Structures are given as structure tokens and as C-alpha cells.
């Protein structure tokens, strides 16, 4: 493998796609498996540290991890000439490989949209980066929490599709 060959760039983008995906899904699972269930157990005087210090930092890595995952994923699909067939989840191509990666791409895209268009805008209001009345915050937290749970649910088949792509 030459250092600057197309094959090398292909590997490099795949590596960056996986690193970004770990950053994104790692934070998603941290929010759902660790932070949310632990919040009620944290003493009241310590609880404000979570929204003030942990959440803004974690949400930064979370949303930009999602962005770089999708960018490198789309670049990979384009470079390997299956982007169009994957968008239509391999219908007509008689390829389980393309059907698998296409479904995985759609699941990932829904999750990315959830992050950028539901979770992050709601979290900005909950954390006070965008001003809203206190009365609105419980509803916004509920919506953001449900969107995060939807992403946790979708992450399981999404990772199956991504990891299983060489199996098909």
C-alpha cells in the first residue's frame, strides 16, 4: 500500500470514520447508561456541576463527533462508488452488502439529524445558552431525553450494519 494511494486515503477515512463514531456513540451511551440513571443519586449541592461543567463539554464532543462521523462516512461511500446505491438501500442491485450498508447509513443519518435538530437545540435552551422561561424547560428536557433514547435504540442495529458489512 503506497502512502498517498487512493487505497491509503480509503483506509485513512475509514479510520477517522471509526474514531469519530466512537467519540459520538461513546458519549451517547455515557448520557444514557451512566449520567441519566445516576443523576437522582447525586447530592443536590453537587448536581449543578453536571449542567454547568460536564454537559457543555460532553455535548460539544457528542455533536461534532456525529458530524465528522457522517462526513467521513459519506466520503467513504463516494470514494468506493456505492453512495447512490446505498441511498436506495440496494434495491435492484441484488447485493446484501449494499442493502446492509444502506440501511446502516440511513439509521446513522436519522441519528445525526436527531442530534443536530432535536437534542442540541433543546439542550441549548435547557442549559441556558438560549433563553427560555423555566416553565418550558421540563418539556424541552423530555423531548431531548426521548430523542436521545431513540438514538440509543437505533445505535444497536446501526452498529450491526456497520460492523457486519464485510459479513454480507
Amino acid at each position: 500500500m503506497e502512502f498517498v494511494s487512493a487505497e491509503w486515503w480509503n483506509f485513512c477515512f475509514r479510520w477517522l470514520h471509526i474514531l469519530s463514531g466512537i467519540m459520538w456513540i461513546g458519549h451517547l451511551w455515557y448520557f444514557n447508561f451512566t449520567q441519566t440513571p445516576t443523576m437522582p443519586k447525586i447530592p443536590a449541592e453537587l448536581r449543578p456541576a453536571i449542567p454547568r461543567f460536564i454537559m457543555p463539554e460532553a455535548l460539544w464532543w457528542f455533536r461534532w463527533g456525529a458530524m465528522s462521523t457522517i462526513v467521513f462516512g459519506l466520503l467513504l461511500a463516494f470514494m468506493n462508488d456505492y453512495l447512490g446505491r446505498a441511498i436506495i438501500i440496494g434495491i435492484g442491485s441484488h447485493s446484501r452488502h449494499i442493502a446492509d450498508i444502506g440501511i446502516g447509513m440511513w439509521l446513522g443519518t436519522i441519528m445525526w439529524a436527531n442530534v443536530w435538530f432535536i437534542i442540541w437545540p433543546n439542550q441549548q435552551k435547557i442549559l441556558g445558552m438560549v433563553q427560555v422561561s423555566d416553565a418550558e424547560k421540563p418539556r424541552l428536557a423530555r423531548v431531548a431525553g426521548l430523542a436521545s433514547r431513540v438514538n440509543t435504540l437505533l445505535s444497536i442495529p446501526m452498529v450491526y450494519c456497520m460492523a457486519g458489512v464485510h459479513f454480507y
Partner: protein
Amino acid sequence: MIAALATGHTGEEEGIMKNPLDSLGQTVALGFVLTLVVIGLIHIIA
């Protein structure tokens, strides 16, 4: 689920329905069920 995302209300407050996404265990279980659906879909498509 879609209605819950749009409005923030699941109906649970009124006792109409319980949202399985409120339970982490049920969310993960649904994730594995959806994976089986995806496997079936891959075989149907190709």
C-alpha cells in the same frame, strides 16, 4: 414515539400509555428486536 418527540408528552401522565423508552432495559431490548427486523429486511431486499 413520533408524537412524543413532537410534543414532549407521551400520554403516560394521563395513564393512557407507558413509553418503553423511559426504561433503558426496554430501549436496549427494542434495539435488538429492531436488529432482527433489519437482518430480515437485508435478506428481503437482496
